[in-house]
Structures are given as structure tokens and as C-alpha cells.
């Protein structure tokens, strides 16, 4: 390895390098770094017959960071990868400085396609990890409110999914109040943007349930919905979440972390808002019962009173008199024994109806 001997001009006590010398120095230093594997997405792939090298930019799908890559054309063609823009690859190589321009580049020695199988494996590992942490546990699932004050809708800004969910909600429950947060739902910016929008919704106030809506798409299109950052944000969201992402057969990890999963917009609407007609009908029924209730109560009280009065009457002497008995009084005192009166005495006789006085003829 060449030791870094780069000549500098001396101006008094200041050591000054030419640009070429500086670049040469940095290039020599970079050349001592080890070879490594770097993962990213292929973008801006440029390959021309008359060029010595093939160029592309390796992009980080997480935050969009870029790294220019070059590879000798012969080596690139020998790999027979037939790479296209947007494909995920692992590149083996080392950094180098393109001295003429001072540009950092990654010189590729080998490239491997990071295929669907690798994606699936990575996804499965993440699923296992988050599952082991308990993020998908059934006991974490919360009940959705029956009657949310406001519904948060997190969706793409272009999306048909947005329109479908909004229509389904307002058809079922016209009085619904919905707060829509639009954001990227695809590509490298989607996951962090979704997390931010979710936080915004939680802060908007009076939001009792949130729907995460995205229409169907390819496996790659739906990847942001399996991004660890978003999955964690969904699991820890203070507001209950309905995940309505993709179609029935898709199971992005947000589906597992959400409180409920819906496979269609109308399915989501059924979970989120009550059926206005049913609510109205139930209210009408309850009102009817409410209005009848006091009358019923009065009738019952009246019936009880009538019953008590009937018993009272049955026990009164009046009823006995009605049946043909009579009360005999001697100067106001009731006569119970014949010897209490004497012949010739005046007595008063009370009947069921009316009374009369009589004189005692004979005691028996």
C-alpha cells in the first residue's frame, strides 16, 4: 500500500495542498477501507456501449439517502442480472474517490439481487420479532367506540381508497365527522410520512378511532405498511386503529398491529360508525316506550288502588249488611246477646240499605 505522501506548498507556517494533491490523498486513504456489502434500491441506471463502466445510484428505501455506484461494464454484463430501476440489491465493493471531480463513488465488485424471497424472509423475521414483543397479542386489541365523535382517516392523497372509505362511512352514517390526513403511502418516504401523519391525527383532538386505508397494490407497494416504524406506531397509538390496507389476501404487519382489520372500505365503515337508520329506529322505539311509560305507571298505581279498595270494602260491615245481615243497637251500643235487651225496649236496626226503629216484643 502506498503511504500517504502528498506534497504540499509551504506558505510561511501554512501547509497548502493543491486540489489534485488533496484528492489524491483522500483517494489513497479511502482505498485502505475494507470491502463491504451495501443494500439499496437501484435508480438512475446508466449503461452505454461506449462507456467503460456502468453507473447507477443506490438509494436507501428508508430515508432516500443516495450513493453513486460504478462497475466495469464487462463485469456488470457478466453478472447477467438484467437489473431494472427500483430493484433491491446487495452490492459488494469499496468506496473510491473519482479524483478528477472529488466525487465519492462506490466501486462495485459484485451485485446480487435482493429478491422477493429475501423480502419475505426479512418480513417474516420482523414479524417474529415484533410478535415476540407482544405487539400483535389479542389482549392488546381494544374495543372500538360505537359512536365516535370524530373519525381519523389516514390515506394516500391520490387515493381511490380515500374516496371509497369516505363514501362508505357517510353512506352508513351521514352525521359522521371525519378528519382526513393525506400522505405518501408508497415508496421510501411513505413509512416515516405515515408515522408523522398518524401522530398528527392523534393530536387533532376528539378522534375516537383511526382508519388506515390503502387500496390494493403489489407486494412492494404495500411494504411501507410492514415497516417496523409504522407497525410500532400503530401498536402504540393511543387511539384505536382499523387497518384497511390492500386486499383480503394481503397481510401487511400493520394489519396485525391494528386493533381490527377490515378487508374492504365498507367493512371498515361497518366497524367505525353505526348504521344511522338503525340508531334512529332504536331511538324512536325507546321514545315510544318512554312516552307510554308514565301512563302505564299510572294505570298500575290505579289498579293497585282499586285492588286495595276492593279488599277494604270486602272487610267492611257494609258489605256484610248488603248480604242480608242487620246490626241491632240499643241506645247506640251494638247488641250481640239477646239478654242485653228487655221486652218493650226500643232498638235501632241498621240494614244494608236504610234503618228503622223497633220495639222488643219477646226475648227467646
Amino acid at each position, binding site marked *: 500500500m502506498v503511504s500517504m505522501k502528498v506534497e504540499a506548498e509551504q506558505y510561511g507556517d501554512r501547509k497548502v495542498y493543491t486540489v489534485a494533491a488533496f484528492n489524491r490523498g483522500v483517494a489513497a486513504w479511502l482505498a485502505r477501507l475494507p470491502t463491504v456489502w451495501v443494500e439499496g434500491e437501484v435508480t438512475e441506471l446508466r449503461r452505454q456501449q461506449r462507456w467503460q463502466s456502468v453507473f447507477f445510484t443506490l438509494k436507501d428505501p428508508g430515508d432516500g439517502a443516495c450513493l453513486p455506484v460504478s462497475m466495469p461494464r464487462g463485469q456488470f454484463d457478466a453478472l447477467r442480472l438484467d437489473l431494472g430501476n427500483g430493484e433491491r440489491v446487495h452490492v459488494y465493493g469499496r468506496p473510491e474517490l473519482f479524483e478528477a471531480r472529488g466525487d465519492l463513488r462506490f466501486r462495485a465488485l459484485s451485485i446480487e439481487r435482493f429478491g422477493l424471497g429475501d423480502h419475505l424472509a426479512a418480513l417474516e423475521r420482523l414479524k417474529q420479532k415484533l410478535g415476540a414483543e407482544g405487539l400483535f397479542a389479542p389482549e392488546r386489541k381494544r374495543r372500538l367506540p360505537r359512536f365516535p365523535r370524530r373519525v381519523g382517516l389516514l390515506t394516500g392523497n391520490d387515493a381511490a381508497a380515500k374516496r371509497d372509505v369516505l363514501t362508505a362511512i*357517510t353512506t352508513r352514517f351521514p352525521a359522521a*365527522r371525519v378528519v382526513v390526513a393525506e400522505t405518501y403511502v408508497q415508496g421510501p418516504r411513505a413509512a416515516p410520512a405515515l408515522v408523522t401523519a398518524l*401522530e*398528527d391525527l392523534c393530536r387533532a383532538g376528539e378522534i375516537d378511532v383511526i382508519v388506515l386505508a390503502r387500496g390494493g397494490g403489489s407486494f412492494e407497494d404495500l411494504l411501507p405498511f410492514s415497516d417496523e416504524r409504522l407497525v410500532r406506531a400503530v401498536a402504540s397509538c393511543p387511539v384505536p386503529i382499523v387497518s384497511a390496507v390492500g386486499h383480503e389476501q394481503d397481510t401487511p404487519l400493520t394489519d396485525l398491529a391494528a386493533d381490527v382489520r377490515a378487508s374492504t372500505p365498507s367493512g371498515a365503515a361497518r366497524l367505525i360508525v353505526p348504521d344511522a337508520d338503525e*340508531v334512529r329506529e332504536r331511538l324512536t322505539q325507546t321514545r315510544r*316506550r318512554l312516552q307510554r*311509560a308514565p301512563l302505564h*305507571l299510572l294505570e298500575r298505581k290505579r289498579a293497585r288502588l282499586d285492588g286495595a279498595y276492593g279488599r277494604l270494602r270486602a272487610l267492611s260491615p257494609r258489605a256484610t249488611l248488603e248480604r242480608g245481615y242487620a246490626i241491632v243497637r240499643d241506645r247506640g251500643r251494638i247488641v250481640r246477646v239477646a239478654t242485653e235487651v228487655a221486652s218493650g225496649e226500643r232498638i235501632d236496626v241498621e240494614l244494608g240499605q236504610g234503618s228503622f226503629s223497633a220495639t222488643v216484643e219477646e226475648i227467646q
Partner: protein
Amino acid sequence: MRFEEAQKELEQIVQQLESGQANLDDAIKLWERGEELHRLCLEQLDSAQGKIEVLKPTEPA
């Protein structure tokens, strides 16, 4: 008052009235409260006619 709470209280009042346990004075008060709750529920169903707002997004840092 939220619709769910109002509806729940209303239904409890109806049940209480229908059970016939309440005395007449209480029954009148319960009935009045029930009517008020019913009005509250209807207002929420009718007045809040669908409102859709779009939240201004925060640019991710």
C-alpha cells in the same frame, strides 16, 4: 354529553319507568329527563350533518 351516554341513560330510564318501581313524583322527573335525553340524541343525529376536514400535514423532519 356524548350520544352513547345519552342513549344509555335514556334506555335505563325507560326500564326504570317500565318496572313500575318509581313513585309518581320520581316518575315525572324521570320522564322529563328521558325527554331531554331523547332530544339530545336527536340533535346529535341531525345537526352534525357530515363534516369532512383535511388535516394539514406536518412535513416529516
